[in-house]
């Protein structure tokens, strides 16, 4: 579940990064466009809010600092110089790269905080500079993870917590200087049915000061109690930081209220006022003591104790006095003591802690910062701070979003996991419908119902068509235009060429060509590598180009086209081409081929050697490029694609990538065999032949059975041995053996019987079975039998 949430976050965050990058791109030329700044700041702010749901502090911090800068620009307190825009873009690039890590690894790289530190510092430096320039000490960004809620804004449920516990929390706050968080966790009534153990979750909250469980609704009589409906509310006070807590409760964010309680809010007036006049006298007496430059706190304490002794315990003023007593006992008496005394004098208003312009003025100090909670940030930040906004909501609720009207038209966002599940189900359906022809045959042959057989076959045709259409429809949902992954290219090329002193233009065509999202993702990195390679090694410096009679500006073109069920991407440059002589020399030096082999290579083959790992071309710097290209080929091949390259000296290099447009179909053709009563499958593309070997055709060499097959010696592996099923049957007569490929070798897999080919959907094993060697997964055959698909590699 967490995983799905994270995936959703990554998807949305990527959009948000793109939005802000786009806005920044235009801002570079028109830095004064307030609309664009607004667009950028709201995207970044939404991103920040959503990121807090996860344990990705460096990302959150980086985004937070970026947001601060943008917010300042938005408030016209900062001029967006090209330096700042570049820095912001670099930060967003970093965020984008982390999003990829998050998607793949599920976590940020370990060096994330170190990596982010310089950027964060640079962003903060700009922000501080701007603030100093504006002579304005009050921050605008606000919304720190764990920012205090302003005094007076604490939720009403704090009243339920016993006063003694509240005051203990206050004392802790004052001692440590860190806020105490109050959590109210009201698990869903169905929580138990959903497999949740709320108490267990609560138990994981670190540094708990208090944990209470109360009934959400009054308890029914014991006879009427439904033990499986959760009727508990947990209230927790803890000194753990906000980030930890949001992480802890992110799965149940909508059932949880996490509040960093301001110190003042721990003191909550309750009961009736006993003696208003005495209160006013007390306040009048104490105020002069507080007004001194260095108040004598002992005097104040004395006065408080004396008044408290005269006041009934249940009186409202007593609640405030007890709070005052705790505040006065702290090593550093908090600044709001003055406000508290004033409140007592004024008859202990319930919302005494809420900022009041007049009384706050007298208690000036660090409290100003708390009191002046940034209204600008309030909507998004507090919503997500309280944990009641999913990234989805956060996406839709930025205050003052100028596009509110268009929300109805916003595309429906679907969690990719749902699509994956749909695809998987459709694949299952496709496999399940294959049982129909078998049934039809049986109806005709075994039962003699030819009518029924006919009807079944016809019906199979209908189902078949619908399933195919379904498959097409769900495939179409997963398609994205190639342009999505080409977005970062022009900028990368511009930045890189600028540092190298080259001039390069990128020409893109066919960016609207569609391909499956996962295919595109596997293309994104290779394409960037190829471009980097083309800029670094392909395009020559301007003077060389001019000397060669080429235009100053080098061109790299990228074209995407659909070719049947494949997507073909061609990237070509008009640079120097590959120095095949160098490649030959390097290949020989690195021991890849020998000198004679190198001389025999055609130009084309020599050029293709750049894909071989370890072949360095132009110079030392190129070693990286060499390994890049090797990685490119590996990645593309892994995705089921091919790479080809052509190069002409002095004219340029073209690299052609060809990949299947959609994911590999999930059904696999397997050969099914039986062994000891169980059904096994072997992927069909590994099966060379099935044959029966007479017992006398088997020979024993070094205690292993071998057979001669097509003039080669093939080891025989008994499946029953390998699966530890039972002692092998004494071989009688012919033994069914399946010749399978294991890498470049062959082995003969001896089984009990062959069952013929089947199209199946392989489900990987999980749980305790995940580590069972020798199997890739299980599958259901048309007849509804479970078949274990073997990983024959393990049998060699």
């Amino acid at each position: 579940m967490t995983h799905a949430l994270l995936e959703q976050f990554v998807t949305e965050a990527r959009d948000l990064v793109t939005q802000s990058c786009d806005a920044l791109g235009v801002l570079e030329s028109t830095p004064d466009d307030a609309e664009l700044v607004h667009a950028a700041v709201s995207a970044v702010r939404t991103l920040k809010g959503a990121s807090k749901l996860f344990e990705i502090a460096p990302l959150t911090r980086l985004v937070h600092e970026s947001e601060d800068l943008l917010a300042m620009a938005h408030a016209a307190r900062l001029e967006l110089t090209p330096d700042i825009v570049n820095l912001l873009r670099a930060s967003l690039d970093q965020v984008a790269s982390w999003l990829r890590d998050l998607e793949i690894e599920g976590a940020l790289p370990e060096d994330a905080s170190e990596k982010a530190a310089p950027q964060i510092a640079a962003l903060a430096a700009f922000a501080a500079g701007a603030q100093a320039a504006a002579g304005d000490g009050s921050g605008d960004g606000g919304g720190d993870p764990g920012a205090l809620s302003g005094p007076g804004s604490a939720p009403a449920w704090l009243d339920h917590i016993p006063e003694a516990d509240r005051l203990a929390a206050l004392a802790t706050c004052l001692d440590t200087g860190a806020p105490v968080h109050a959590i109210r966790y009201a698990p869903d009534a169905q929580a138990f049915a959903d497999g949740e153990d709320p108490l267990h979750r609560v138990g994981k909250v670190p540094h708990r000061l208090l944990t209470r469980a109360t009934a959400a609704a009054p308890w029914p009589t014991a006879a009427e109690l439904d033990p499986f409906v959760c009727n508990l509310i947990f209230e927790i006070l803890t000194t753990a930081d906000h980030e930890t807590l949001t992480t802890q409760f992110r799965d149940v964010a909508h059932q949880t209220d996490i509040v960093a309680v301001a110190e003042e809010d721990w003191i909550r007036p309750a009961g009736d006022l006993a003696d208003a006049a005495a209160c006013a006298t007390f306040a009048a007496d104490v105020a002069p003591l507080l007004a001194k430059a260095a108040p004598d706190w002992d005097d104040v304490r004395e006065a408080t104790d004396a008044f408290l002794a005269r006041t009934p315990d249940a009186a409202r003023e007593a609640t405030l006095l007890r709070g005052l007593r705790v505040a006065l006992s702290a090593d550093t008496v908090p600044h709001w003591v003055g406000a508290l005394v004033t409140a007592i004098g004024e008859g202990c208003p319930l919302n005494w802690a809420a900022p009041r312009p007049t009384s706050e003025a007298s208690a000036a100090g660090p409290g100003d910062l708390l009191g002046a909670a940034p209204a600008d940030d309030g909507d998004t930040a507090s919503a997500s701070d309280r944990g009641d906004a999913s990234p989805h909501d956060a996406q839709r609720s930025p205050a003052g979003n100028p596009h509110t009207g268009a929300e109805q038209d916003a595309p429906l966002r679907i969690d990719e996991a749902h699509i994956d599940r749909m695809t998987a189900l459709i694949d299952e359906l496709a496999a399940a419908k294959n049982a129909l022809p078998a049934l039809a045959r049986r109806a005709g042959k075994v039962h003699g119902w030819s009518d029924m057989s006919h009807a079944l076959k016809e019906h199979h045709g209908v189902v078949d068509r619908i399933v195919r259409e379904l498959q097409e429809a769900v495939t179409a949902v997963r398609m994205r235009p190639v342009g999505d992954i080409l977005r970062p290219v022009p900028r990368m090329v511009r930045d890189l060429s600028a540092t190298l002193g080259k001039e390069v233009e990128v020409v893109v065509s066919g960016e609207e060509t569609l391909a499956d999202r996962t295919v595109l993702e596997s293309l994104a990195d290779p394409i960037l590598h190829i471009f980097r390679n083309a800029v670094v090694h392909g395009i020559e410096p301007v003077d060389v180009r001019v000397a060669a009679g080429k235009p100053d500006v080098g061109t790299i073109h990228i074209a995407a086209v659909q070719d049947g069920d494949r997507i073909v991407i061609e990237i070509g440059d008009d640079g120097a081409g590959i120095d095949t002589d160098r490649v030959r020399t390097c290949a020989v030096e690195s021991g890849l081929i020998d000198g004679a082999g190198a001389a025999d290579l055609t130009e084309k083959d020599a050029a293709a050697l750049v894909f071989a790992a370890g072949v360095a071309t132009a110079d030392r710097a190129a070693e990286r490029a060499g390994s890049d290209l090797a990685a490119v080929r590996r990645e593309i091949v892994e995705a089921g694609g091919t790479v080809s390259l052509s190069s002409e000296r002095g004219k340029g290099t073209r690299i052609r990538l060809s990949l299947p447009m959609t994911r590999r179909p999930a059904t696999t053709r397997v050969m099914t065999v039986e062994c000891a009563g169980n059904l096994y499958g072997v992927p069909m593309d590994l099966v060379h032949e099935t044959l029966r070997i007479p017992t006398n055709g088997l020979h024993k060499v070094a205690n292993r059975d071998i057979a001669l097959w097509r003039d080669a010696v093939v080891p025989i592996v008994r499946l029953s041995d390998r699966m530890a099923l039972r002692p092998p049957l004494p071989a009688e007569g012919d033994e069914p053996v399946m010749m399978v490929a294991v890498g470049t070798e062959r082995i003969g897999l001896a089984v009990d019987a062959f069952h013929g080919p089947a199209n199946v959907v392989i489900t990987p094993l999980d749980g305790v079975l995940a580590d069972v060697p020798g199997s890739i997964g299980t599958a259901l055959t048309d007849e509804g039998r479970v078949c274990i698909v073997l990983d024959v590699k393990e049998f060699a």
Partner: protein
Amino acid sequence: MPIGYLNVTAVCEGVCTVDEAGPLLNWLNARRVALVDLGEAAQVHTAIVQVLLATNAIISAAPRDPLLCEVLAPALERSKQARPGSLSRQATAPVREPPSDAAADAA
């Protein structure tokens, strides 16, 4: 068996899961006097905690887990007050179950 049922005492041991909340509640409901021993309970599911809070079950031995003690505070408090002579006092409480039940227990 994480919850063992004696005549008048349910003994929770080890990890008590959500599945045991139902049987425990039924057991408690079938008794006028019911003690629950949590002394050996390592982990108790929220559903069981809820049953203990919502019923008049007397906790005869408090759990060792401080969190569990904190959460069960009202029930523990009630148990403390009920324990001295609780058996006789509870026994004279309004009878909700047919008397045959006690006999069934003994058997």
